[in-house]
């Protein structure tokens, strides 16, 4: 297996699927001539031409709607948001059109659209550029949402997302683009949506997380191990569909859980996981399920305050210890 970056894994996924299926095309700001703001689409213009790699004006609502319309007539658009922060401008098209049109047309319309780009905070970009955007999309039936945390997951999930016949939101992370990891070769390397991955097996407590937070979780698990607490690190990978079975399995074994996520807590991913555990694993729980999230404030610019605001290894360790009563 080759070791490649998360960025290159995404790039490969795009290239392979565009190669395989002529109806796939990529559009967004700076994706073509500039190779993408974060260079995820490097070389694609050269390879596939400007018909299939399309630089758009800064018109998020408009080009997202373009994707909806193109999907209605049989194409498979992949929209790159330069960052998901800007996708708020396009949310009406995503919620009211992409997510609802299948139902409101009685199934006449499908929306095989991928919306992708980095979400969450990078370093010191300030509050308007540092938002975790999962919650906006997860609330709405009709959308699927995935958040890969490794190069292999990035490639496998993006490929599956492109082949999926429904709108799939792929939330990447700017902080992961340079991360290297082994990625299976072969065009048919696909990761099914709705399947979580136990990134570490422990048994004492379940850390339930996704996206770049899995690396915080893995570091915390190491620290916990030194203190004799072995953590399961369950990487949800896919947030909708959600692998409830794997969540219940892990918690059924550990009887304790902490939900870790990059974003705000009110109505975040963790709140839904907690609710599922409440409803379906109440008797399994030996301690309350806790959540570790971003500080409940707009992300500050100052470096130290930003670091403090993000969910940290130490906060996670603390929460795990708390639910383990150690």
């Amino acid at each position, binding site marked *: 297996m080759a070791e490649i970056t998360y960025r290159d894994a995404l790039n490969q996924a795009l290239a392979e699927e565009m190669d395989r299926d002529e109806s796939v*095309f990529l559009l967004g700001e700076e994706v073509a001539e500039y190779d993408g703001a974060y260079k995820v689409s490097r070389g694609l213009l050269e390879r596939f031409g400007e*018909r299939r790699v399309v630089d*758009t*004006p800064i*018109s998020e*609502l*408009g*080009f*997202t*709607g*373009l*994707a*909806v*319309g*193109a*999907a*209605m*007539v*049989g*194409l498979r*658009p992949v929209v790159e948001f330069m960052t998901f922060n800007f996708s708020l401008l396009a949310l*009406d*098209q995503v919620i*009211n*059109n992409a997510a609802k*049109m*299948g*139902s*409101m*047309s*009685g*199934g*006449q*319309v*499908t929306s095989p659209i991928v919306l992708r780009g980095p979400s969450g905070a990078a370093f010191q970009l300030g509050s308007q550029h540092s938002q975790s955007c999962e919650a906006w999309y997860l609330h709405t*039936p*009709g959308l*699927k949402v995935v958040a890969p945390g490794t190069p292999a997951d990035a490639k496998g999930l993006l490929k599956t997302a492109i082949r999926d*016949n*429904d709108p799939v939101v792929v939330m990447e992370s700017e902080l992961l683009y340079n991360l290297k990891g082994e990625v299976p070769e072969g065009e048919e390397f696909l990761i*099914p*949506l*709705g*399947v979580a991955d136990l990134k570490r097996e422990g048994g004492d407590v379940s850390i339930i997380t996704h996206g770049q937070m899995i690396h915080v979780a893995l570091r915390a698990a190491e620290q916990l191990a030194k203190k004799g607490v072995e953590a399961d690190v369950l990487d949800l990978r*896919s947030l*909708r*569909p*959600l*692998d*409830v*079975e794997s969540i219940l399995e892990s918690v059924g074994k550990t009887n304790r859980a902490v939900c870790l996520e990059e974003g705000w807590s009110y109505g975040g991913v963790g709140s*839904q996981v907690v609710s*599922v555990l409440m*409803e379906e694993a109440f008797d399994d729980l030996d301690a309350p399920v806790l959540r570790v999230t971003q500080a409940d404030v707009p992300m500050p610019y100052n470096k130290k305050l930003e670091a403090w605001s993000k969910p940290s290894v130490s906060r996670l360790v603390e929460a795990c210890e708390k639910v383990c009563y150690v």
Partner: protein
Amino acid sequence: MLQRSSVEQELEREGSVNKPTMTTKTSALSKEELIELLKQMLLYRRFEEKAGESYAIGKIGGFCHLHIGQEAVAAGCITPLKKDDYVIGTYREHTQALAKGVPPEAVMAELYGKAAGTSGGLGGSMHIFGTDVGFMGGHGIVGGQLAVALGIAWGIHYRGGDQVCVCFLGDAAVNQGAFHESLNMAAIWNLPVIYAVENNDFGMGTKFSRVSKTAMSQKSASHGVPARVIDGQNVMSTYADFGEVVEEVRKGAGPQFVDVQCYRFKGHSMSDPVSGTYRSKKEVEDKTENADPIKILCDHMFDSGLLSPEELQEMDGEAREVVKRAAEFAEAAPEPDIKSLYENVYSEANPNGRLFFDGRVI
């Protein structure tokens, strides 16, 4: 029955003299074309009247926006299209669906919320779809369909087809950012899309001049999309002029903006009064008397000896019959199953993981 009256081709609309109005070549229309236009408009009128009645007795629910008075728009703009051309509309779209070839029974059944409706009863009056005949839906968010239309036109362009996409919008929708984003992109990529404003001069109770400093024909100017003004009450002009635009676009002229001037005889929706604070009873009566698109066409055909009152009566009878059967069909059709609620949210069941979180079992 429809009354004869003097032809009233000129719409009295402020400023229209300054607009790039098209020259109408109605003389070129054949008898067959005229009869087809008349039949279409009769169908729309009777269909909308029936929808109004059914709404009044609670067979149709929700919002319901009728085209009465504006029939020439769908007839004139859609008749020139081919089957594989695309049309997309707003929540005021019944007659456009009919014009593009969606069966009246299926549209009526949708209004009745039945399983045999175009969206299986899940869409309703504002969301009629007929993708098999290129009718890409009625859309409820003002401006929302404008960005979607861009994508449909993109699809044509991507595949190198010669179809066109006609995107209807109301006059009030030009103030949405979506309108401008769509026109700009259509212009830079030279996409085959026609933005057809069903300009009835009002967005609910707001006259256009209160929400725009410039005339409608100016609204595409920022983007370099050519604008035309056409008469949307005289179906002969609408058809001839719009048909010309369609053929230009088919030949590669790129996006076009067409101000189709028309008048709504009824309220904005079923709950809105026909006249009131925002327009006078007299204005509506005048227009209803003098600018009825069906009357205008009939008068012309009577005058040219292409139609007799008896023929008109027969055609109108047929239209009424079609609509009656549609309503009977809708009435008799079964209600949708609860299962159908979950069937089209996603296009296929996912083998892994949970998609629905309501904990309901059906």
